[in-house]
């Protein structure tokens, strides 16, 4: 690829009709796959979770904090997703499952869970993950509306639980 000699910011050129069709096809395929929003402040755990989920052909978006998750969902300023006009093109995409770590600085996994369950995203299943097996924590999350509480580190064998929640989340007419 030739180096850009121009000082100007290079604008994306308009896609040609054939490319547009390919892009649309790609987007359609993406729409058919389950999309998981993964929230964890640990870069290692994000990488692991992403790989684990992609191994099942899920589409994955990883964010590093509860705040970033709220921003992604359009909940940061108490506005509903429909009304928040964000530049992010992915705002239009569905989210089939949210997986969040429990212990995060700032907005914790539990805080995130409560915000989600009190919003228009409340029907999206939320799985809370933690490295600590604390019964009171588990019941608090389940009572808060979490579909499941999973112990970290997650294993390949845990994927079937995730799949079960995703299948339950399929829209019914």
């Amino acid at each position, binding site marked *: 690829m030739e180096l850009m000699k121009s000082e100007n910011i290079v604008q994306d050129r308009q896609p040609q009709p054939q490319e547009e069709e390919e892009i649309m096809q790609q987007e359609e395929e993406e729409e058919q796959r389950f999309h998981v929003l993964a929230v964890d402040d*640990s*870069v*290692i*755990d994000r*990488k*692991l979770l992403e*790989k*684990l989920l992609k*191994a099942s052909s899920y589409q994955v978006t990883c964010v590093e904090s509860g705040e970033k998750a709220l921003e992604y969902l359009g909940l940061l300023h108490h506005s509903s997703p429909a009304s928040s006009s964000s530049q992010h093109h992915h705002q239009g995409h569905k989210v089939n499952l949210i997986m969040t770590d429990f*212990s995060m600085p700032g907005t914790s996994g539990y805080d995130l869970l409560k915000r989600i369950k009190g919003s228009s995203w409340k029907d999206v299943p939320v799985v809370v993950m933690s*490295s600590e097996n604390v019964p009171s924590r588990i019941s608090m999350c389940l009572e808060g509306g979490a579909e499941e509480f999973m112990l*970290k*580190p997650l*294993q*390949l064998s845990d994927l079937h639980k995730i799949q079960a929640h995703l299948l339950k989340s399929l829209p019914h007419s």
Partner: protein
Amino acid sequence: MEVGQMQRRLVDYTKSLFMEGFLDAQFLQLQQLQDESNPDFVVEVVSLFFDDSEKLLNDLTMALDQPSVDFKKVDAHVHQLKGSSSSIGAQRVKNACIAFRSFCEEQNIDATLRCLQQVKQEYYLVKNKLETMLRLEQQIVAAGGSIPMIELGF
């Protein structure tokens, strides 16, 4: 050294790491997640672990060096290190962190300083072992061989 010999050396070395408790089953999960679409996955995760851990160990050293130690902060760092070592299967580092946290709770400065030394020691040991193992893998691949999957009896 021919490829078959190198592969046997790698298998023996890797097995010893499990036997001696440096690595646990979680590391096998990492290896199982690696595939043709992401052949450097284990190397990438391990590198992230090294970078993350070294930063945490520095933070811990500084935090414990303060005239008035903030044990909550120390505990938060140890919790993070425990999590990441657990995620990659660095068992001895994880166990050292568990002990560390109990002394943080007691706010015992002498014990926590000893724990820090212990965690550092375990970290550098496993770092060395992993680097050796990954180097052996690299040599095999460079010689045109494939990485043998480890079968563990337990």
